């Protein structure tokens, strides 16, 4: 075949399944002591200092990172198991999740030794929350149009401009920002952008809330006015951020959070249809289960390739494209299938509640972390069409 897509049947090794039991026991105990609630579909990964510190103490944040930075040097597949169990349990991972998934790995690869030694161990302890400062009012999917400027000054850089749609910025201790340090060149419009680790306590940074259609506060506008960034907070090459942006995205795109975000709706659908659904209900559940099973196999397969040191960029983009479309449709499909369940019947009320929330958050799933359109562009390039 000219267009080779690889999705080998990867199995999680035994140590992963042992770890899975350990994670489930931990989560059950945390539910029991009230750190979070088990029926929490509606909370959408809440922010909990207590929970994140406990997870850090377990060694499950930065668990693949070098020991000298607080990591545990465990495998990527073990991290996969922790991520999916937390996601399915709707555990309150908001504080540490972004740092664990992408900010930490970028710092390990491109950060100065001082920043690594300072920040990474605290991430591992579940103490620091990261935000991602990419989008701007006039630069969303087109990252290379970023205009927020970092101007060289003595010992560092002065940043001026505005980032927007920045999740967690109001709670974050740090932000990884993409700033313009030079003008793009004629030959390369991607040239001239630099990544920085931004300490959110820096004077000159203002965070303004943007409330979402769900009523929740997640997005923010982050305004920089002569905010000073020390030289050793630059990540990688000045003007060369475009060279650093692609490989970690495979991690970001193919994880279990890319198809399990509304999984609780499927669980509640099974509950509300009962143990003897009619043919229509059974067929509906069967198709949804087959689809989520296939997605998980795709995602585990990509995890296996990442674990083996490969960079399955196209396969990862496919997982996110197919996975987010599925998790976005799921609430609507569940609504159809539950249409004839009587209003007062068992579990109907909690199903409705979860369905409402999932329906409202569903539109964001195909936008955040790379829109469907951007992903299909990446896939098309991989197919040799562009």
């Amino acid at each position, binding site marked *: *075949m*000219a*267009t080779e*897509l*690889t*999705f*080998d*049947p990867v*199995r*999680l090794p035994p140590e992963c399944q042992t770890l899975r039991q350990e994670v489930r026991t931990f989560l059950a105990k945390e539910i029991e002591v009230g750190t979070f609630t088990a029926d929490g579909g509606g909370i959408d990964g809440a922010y909990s200092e207590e929970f994140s510190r406990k997870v850090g103490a377990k060694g499950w944040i930065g668990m693949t990172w070098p020991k000298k930075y607080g990591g545990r040097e465990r495998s990527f597949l073990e991290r996969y198991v922790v991520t*999916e*169990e937390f996601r*399915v349990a709707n555990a309150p991972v908001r504080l540490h999740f972004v740092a664990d998934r992408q900010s930490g790995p970028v710092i390990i690869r491109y950060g100065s030794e001082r920043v690594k030694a300072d920040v990474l161990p605290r991430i591992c302890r579940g103490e620091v929350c990261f935000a991602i400062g990419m989008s701007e009012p006039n630069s969303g999917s087109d990252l290379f149009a970023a205009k927020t400027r970092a101007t060289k000054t003595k010992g560092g850089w002065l940043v001026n401009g505005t980032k927007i749609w920045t999740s967690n910025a109001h709670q974050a201790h740090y932000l990884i920002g993409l700033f313009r340090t030079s003008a793009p060149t004629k030959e390369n419009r991607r040239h001239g952008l630099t990544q920085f680790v931004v300490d959110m306590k820096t004077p000159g940074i203002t965070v303004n809330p943007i409330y979402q259609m769900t009523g929740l506060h997640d997005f923010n506008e982050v305004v920089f006015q002569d905010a000073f960034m020390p030289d050793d907070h630059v990540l990688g090459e000045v003007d060369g951020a475009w060279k650093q942006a692609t490989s970690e995205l495979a991690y970001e795109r193919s994880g279990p959070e890319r198809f399990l975000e509304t*999984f609780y709706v*499927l*669980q*509640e659908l*099974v*509950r509300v*249809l*009962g*143990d*003897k*659904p009619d*043919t229509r*209900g*059974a*067929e*509906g*559940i*069967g*198709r949804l*289960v*087959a*689809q*989520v*099973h*296939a*997605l*998980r*196999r*795709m995602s585990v*397969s990509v995890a296996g390739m990442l674990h083996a040191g490969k960079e399955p960029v*196209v*396969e990862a983009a*496919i*997982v996110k*494209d*197919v996975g987010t479309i599925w998790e976005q449709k799921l609430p609507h499909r569940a609504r159809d299938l539950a249409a004839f369940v009587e209003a007062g019947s068992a579990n109907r009320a909690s199903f409705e509640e979860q369905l409402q929330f999932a329906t409202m958050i569903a539109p964001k799933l195909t936008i955040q972390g790379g829109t469907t*359109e951007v*992903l*299909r*562009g990446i*896939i*098309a390039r*991989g*197919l*040799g*069409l*562009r």
Partner: protein
Amino acid sequence: MESENLIAETTRRILGDLADPQAINKAGEAWKPPAWSALEEAGLTLAWVPEDLGGAGAGIADGFAVLREAGRFAAALPLAETLLAGWLLSRAGIAVPKGAMTIGPTRDGERLKLAANGSLSGALRSLPFAKDAGHLAVLARRDGAGIAVALLDARQGRISDGTSIGGDPLNAVTFDAVRPLAVKEAPAGVDEQALLLMGAAARSMQMSGALEAILDLAVAYANERVAFERPIAKFQAVQHNLARLAGETAAALAAAGSAADAIANAETFDEAVFLEAASAKIRVGEAATEGAAIAHQVLGAIGFTQEHTLHRYTRRLWAWRDDFGSESAWAVKLGHLVAAKGADGLWPMLAAR
């Protein structure tokens, strides 16, 4: 991965030489006997039969890899059926004859009866390639209890005319108290459902191979075909359609490959194998529907002609959806299993491997 798999490579070489879709598209049926002989001589048709029962003694995984290759050629030969028949017969300890075979029952709920006097009766509505088969391997229910594996000469059944939407023989076969050539007890754990699961995984592999092939065809065509003064591959609408085709192909490859691997490494047809093979047939069937539609859309009018080879794949993709349980049939069964286990049993089942 593939280059390590000698048996899949052999399949590709033989089918590439003797069953290339472009070369045989207008060649009638004459290509079939030499292609079949070559596959037979290489031991591929009896890959799942141990050497002492007349086969090649290859592994389960190897046989599934052969079927993915055959799917990439949309091979109009009873290769999957013969592999499955050989598997069933040899698992029961019946020596396997040469030549093309088919297998039944292939539809949910069908049962054959084996009377106390050893005669076999009943009807199977749709056996793929029964018209081309020399022998049939079937599961039959004994009067009292128990399941038997029976080997029949194809001439012992009344075989109807019939053609699938794929253009291949699809025949109803009726047995009126005939005496099989051989009868043995079915091996433990092998019943009609186990056969359907095995067949579902086999068809899923063929279909995922066919989807890979139409993705290739559609991508190549989009890069060659010029409209509005540029290759249609440069239009974003076409790119996004092809990206979706890649997504469906990826889902099919992952689901089918995982089901084949699960069966290859399982002791019995347990619940884990059920989840894998049923899900594969459902998801791959859905991918076939979506994928065929996209490929036809990209190829436009030329893809709708007899002359172009696209139909060799898409018509078989449509046909294969129905064999060994359709998406709907498996989904109802899977849905009932999930419902019986309850909402809190779903995730542990999905995350078991």
